[in-house]
């Protein structure tokens, strides 16, 4: 039996089977985290510009007089919405607003 034959009679042995479940779970969690970050980034990328755009639009809403023929409860609801639409933002956005 040559030295090479004797070498080939030796085997490297290790059983990775018991680790499989935890490794695959870690892989799934990593993937889930990645998609969570992607989703968060998309939401931020959409939500911030939309929010700013809506904020700009709400400042130029033309508030009309409430039609008197509407029922009282509807008039009240419209009055509240008009107040909300015309309320100034909590923080000034320009130097002119501060002045």
């Amino acid at each position, binding site marked *: 039996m040559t030295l090479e034959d004797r070498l080939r009679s*030796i085997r*490297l042995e290790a059983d990775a089977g018991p680790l499989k479940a935890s*490794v695959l779970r870690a892989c799934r969690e990593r993937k889930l985290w990645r998609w969570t970050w992607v989703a968060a980034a998309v939401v931020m990328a959409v939500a911030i510009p939309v929010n700013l755009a809506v904020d700009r639009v709400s400042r130029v809403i033309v508030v009309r007089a409430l039609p008197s023929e509407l029922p009282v409860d509807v008039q009240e609801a419209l009055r509240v919405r008009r107040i909300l639409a015309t309320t100034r933002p909590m923080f000034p956005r320009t130097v002119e607003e501060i002045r």
Partner: protein
Amino acid sequence: MEATELGALYDAWASRLLAYMMTITRDRSKAEDALHNLFVKLAGGKAELRDPAVYLFTAARNEAIRLSRRRLEKPLADLDVLAAPSESAGLRDALDRLPSDQLDVVVLHVFEGLTFRETAEVLGIPQDTAASRYRYALEKLRELLEP
């Protein structure tokens, strides 16, 4: 990479990679950590591996070296990773006395069945160097086994 593909890859390669990483880290728990990290990285990669043996053994080697920093001097025989018939027990002890660069070639070429080209690619050395390291390893083993 999809979960089923990753599971199949794990079944096909994980035990071999774990054994190989144990020869580098000389520590089972570090090798298990390295295997864990390796498959988490693979999960985020592409499904098709062009040359899986070279790719996986290279990645396994890099991960094992990264985790172990330096090779421990713990003998391979203590790790229970080398299964040798009783008549080759002396040879197993002699393997521990090989220089690490020669042992790397023996492990990949003989125990893992890689060609010299694949072994050289995994180790990042020319193919001729891998072959000569194998030759030197055989000479050294013959010296060590001489009565």
